[in-house]
Every structure is written in C-alpha cells, then in structure tokens.
C-alpha cells in the first residue's frame, strides 16, 4: 500500500512567476523523505505539486512530470481528485472540520464522498485510523465530541488519522509540527516512524533536528535571492546530508553558517 514518486524536470509557476525551477527527485516507497531549506525556497510549493494541491490557487501551474509508480500525475485526462485520494496531505496548522465530531472527522474522506459504509465497518475504520495516529486511547471515550475541543497536538494527530483513513499510497506533511509543543512533536515524530512501514511519507520541516531524526533521505532546497526561483541543491541519504554534504551551501545551512 505505498507507491514511489519520481519527479522529472519540474518547473512550478504562480502566474508568470517561476517559483521552483527544474527539480528532479526520486522518492522511494515506504521511506520518509524530508525537505529542508530556508523560508520561501519553494519546499511547500513543491510538496503541493505532488498531489496537485498547487493548482487550487488561482494562476498556479506546473511544467514537467510527476510519476506515481510510473503514471504521470499531470498527464492529459488525469483527474486531480483521483490523485488526491491516493496522495494524502497533512497541513501546517491542524484543521479539523469544526462542524464535525472526532468520529466524523476521521470518516470525513468517506462521508464527504458519500460512500456507503456499514456502522460496523465505519467503527472499525475509526478505531484503526485513530490507533494508527496514536490518538485512540486519548479520544476513545469522546468520539462524538467536536474535534476542535482537542489540544493542538491531538488535533494534528486527528488530521493525520483523517488522512490515513482514506488509505492513501503517499502521505505529504507540510511542516506538521511547527504549531506544536515538543511533547506533541515527539508524538507526531513517533507516528511518522510507524507510518513508514505502510506508507511513503514526505515531510517538509524547518527543524533540521527533526529531519535528522525522522527521515531516511533528505532534500535541501535553496533560493539564490528574493524573486529568484527555488532550486533543489542536494538530495541524498540523511546521514550524508548532515555529516558529509557534497555542496557548500548544504553544509553552511545544516551547520548553521547560513548566509
């Protein structure tokens, strides 16, 4: 239940502005890949192109190929909705649906798509997803309470449970811990470690320790200056990036001598 992603010569635009230039990267199945780099270098923008969330913004477009196990996401006739049901996403700020209970939030992917499901199946899916997100023990007695009543860290794990309930091939995480305290961050990081047994995980993070802790491979993005496009500088095993990078810019960034 996981697929690999291969990106070939991808250019990402906002209108006429080239935001990310010429990225080629191979993301292995059942692994955690981290994107690091300074703010505004296009990590999140690039991440959003991997499940066609980028084009939700007006004027945004993409050139190049993104292959999910060999199928081009941007091929003619590909429905972005199909793509997104295979490649889930967790956002920077926890965003449970405020009108729904915890249980309905987990079932959102099923219910919003009007798929029929018996109560037993639904209960099983809720338990499985919440256990997968390490949240079951904390919320099992209040599944009918609103999701917005949970703490920030619990909300984020609820969003992860919601993402894995639709059983995607790949999970994209856009700085999932930047709004969380260290304890909740730890919970989410443990969860990422467990998720990679079943899913391909791609995570954007500003926290280099986090990248070093959770990822198998790390990609470093950088930007030459304001108004210039972001580029992929180096992509290698995480230990290589942090201990023995081949590029000077990478070494400066990971060692804190940036600029």
């Amino acid at each position: 239940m996981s697929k690999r992603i291969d990106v070939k010569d991808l250019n990402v635009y906002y209108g006429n502005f080239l935001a990310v230039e010429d990225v080629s990267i191979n993301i292995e199945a059942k692994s955690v890949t981290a994107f690091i780099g300074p703010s505004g270098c296009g990590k999140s923008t690039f991440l959003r192109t991997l499940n066609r969330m980028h084009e939700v913004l007006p004027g945004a477009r993409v050139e190049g190929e993104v292959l999910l196990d060999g199928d081009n996401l941007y091929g003619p006739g590909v429905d972005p909705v199909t793509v997104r049901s295979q490649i889930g996403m967790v956002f920077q700020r926890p965003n449970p649906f405020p009108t729904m209970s915890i249980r309905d939030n987990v079932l959102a992917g099923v219910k919003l798509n009007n798929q029929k499901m018996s109560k037993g199946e639904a209960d099983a899916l809720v338990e499985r997803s919440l256990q997968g997100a390490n949240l079951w023990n904390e919320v099992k007695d209040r599944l009918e309470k609103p999701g917005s009543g949970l703490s920030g860290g619990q909300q984020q794990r609820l969003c992860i449970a919601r993402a894995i309930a639709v059983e995607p091939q790949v999970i994209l995480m856009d700085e999932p811990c930047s709004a969380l305290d260290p304890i909740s961050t730890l919970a989410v990081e443990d969860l990422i470690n467990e998720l990679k047994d079943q899913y391909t995980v791609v995570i954007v993070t500003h926290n280099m320790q986090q990248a070093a802790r959770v990822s198998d491979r790390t990609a470093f993005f950088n930007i030459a200056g304001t108004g210039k496009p972001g580029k992929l500088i180096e992509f290698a095993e995480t230990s290589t990036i942090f201990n023995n990078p081949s590029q000077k810019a990478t070494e400066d960034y990971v060692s804190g001598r940036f600029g």
Partner: protein
Amino acid sequence: MTSTLTPARKRSALTKGQLPKFAPYVVLAVALVLGAAILALIGFNAFGWGLLSAILFAAGLVGWSAAVEGSRKAKDKLATCLVMGSFLIALLPLISVIWTVLVNGIPGIITPGFLGTSMNGVTGVFDNRAAEGTGAVLGGIYHALMGTLQITLLATVISVPVGLLTAIYLVEYGNDRPLARAITFFVDVMTGIPSIVAGLFAAAFFFAIVGPGTKTGAVAAVALSVLMIPVVVRSSEEMLKIVPNELREAAYALGVRKWRTILKVVIPTAISGIASGVTLAIARVIGETAPILVTAGFATTINNNVFGGWMASLPTFIYTQILNPTSPSNPDPSSQRAWGAALVLILLVMLLNLGARLIAKSFAPKTGR
C-alpha cells in the same frame, strides 16, 4: 492582630487628587435642581429641563474634575459625557416609537377577535356604534397577518436559493472574473433600489407576461425578492468568505470534489451566519408597504391563495386603516386597529431577530471538550 506601622490615614496616597466615587451623582442632583430652578423663572417644560440639566451636568462635572484632578481626567470626563449623550439621543427615538406603539397598540391587540377575524363585513356602521359606546370594535387583522406571512414566505423561498447560489458563485468560482465583478457591482446597485421601484418592476413584469391588472400575493413576493436578494447575497458572501481556506484544502486533500466540499464543508461551517443573514433580510422586507400596494392591492377578506386575487398585508392594512378609515366620521376604531397591527408587525420583526440569534447559536460550530 499584629500591629502594623502604617500610619492611620483617611485616604491612600495613591488615590490622592481623585474625585470621590459619588461625585457624578452629586453633580447630577445639583444639575437637576438648578435646571428646574432656572426653567421655573422662564416657564417649565420637560424637554428643556432634560437638555439644560444635561449641559449643566457635563459642565459641572468637567469643571470640578479640572479643578481637582487636572486636565487629562477632565478631558476624559468630557469625552464620556459626549459619548453618553450621543447614545441617549440615539436611543430616544427608539424608546419613543416602542412606547407609542405599545400604548396605542395594546388596546387594539387585546380586543377579542383582533387576531382571529378579518375585516370582511365590518362597515362604518359598526365603527360608529363602537365610537358611540354602544358596541365593541369589530374586525381584525387575520387576513393581513396571513397575507404578510404568505407573501414573505414566498419571497424567502424565491430569494434564498437565488441569493445563496449567487454568493457561492462569487466566493467559490468567481475568482474576480469580469462576470463576478459585474455581479458584485449590480448587487450593490440593487441594494440601493427604492422599494417602490421594485414594486413597479414586479407589477410591470406580471402585466407583461400574465395580463394587465394582475395583482396577487405572488407579484408582491417577486417585488420583495428583488429587495431581498441583494441582502441575502451580501450577507452570505461575507459569511462564505470567512470560512478558512484551510478547511477547503483539507477536504480537497482527502480527494473530495469541489461541489461536495462546498456543500458539506463550506456551507455547514457558514450556515449559522447565513441563516441569521436570511432572517435579517426577512425582517427587512416584512414591513415594506409601497411595493405591496402596487402589486397585491388591498383586501378586507381572507385570501389564502398567493396566486389569485388581491391580498392584504400588515403594512398595507395599517396604511388603508389610517388613510381611509372604515367609518370616515369616526376614525378612532380604525386607528386602534392600525396601531394594533403596527404592534403585531413590530413583534414579528422582534421574533425574527430573536429567531436569528437562536439559529446562529444552534448552528454554530460546536466547541468544548
């Protein structure tokens, strides 16, 4: 008790140079007495007394404060007096209207049969008897109340789907396209249409497609929807705009189609605001008189068919009772009925506003653990 070294003092050094707490009340009492005394010299009247006392109160309090507390506190007191004064002036007409309608309307509304009967068969003869004291005031507003409720309901049924769908187009699909900008512009223009023009439009429209002289509740409902639609569009648009984009993205990321996202995530999140906006739009048109006069005419009998025949409504009932009393020689029973109808209309609007609050509360996204 352990003894302390604090010297016995009447007031703390920290509160030195402040007016005592009772200062405003003292100044108010003095101002009222002084105002009454001055007016007694030139002829007393309540309005002048209130005005003069207010001026004396403001001057006295600010002057005292300036002498004791300094200019900063004095300016603060002056600003407080101005703000409170403006508030009272703004409140005056409202209280006056409610008081007048209550005093004049209650005798009408407690008359037996007022809410349950129509004006069918009530002629000047009965009103003359009532005025002479040999009979009760007959007749009621049942036909007008029913007319108002039916016309407003039909107008709501027309306006809410049109207005809500327009707002959805503007917020979710418009993207600042020329069409969306044109719609926004014309909605703004429609907001300012005088209600009589809306009535004339509906009348002319139905004259053209059904036949000259078509006056029914449905025509009035169309006229009212012309007034309602822009209000519904505006309020729904604002409510849809404040739904966080993150919720839409969260739904898209789950592989949910756009129309389902709108239907099941965006609208439920905004529903409380939309519902209260709709209720306020209803409250806005329920008291319209002019468009109903030219589209539904007046009736004295019960007509429960909005698609056929003239129809009464509360505003036109008030209008005709005051302008053409049932008994021209004794207008008092008619005006009693008119005031009663006015009270019922105000109560309806009040209920709608209360309803809007309840709806907003019950639909609001739940919080809590």
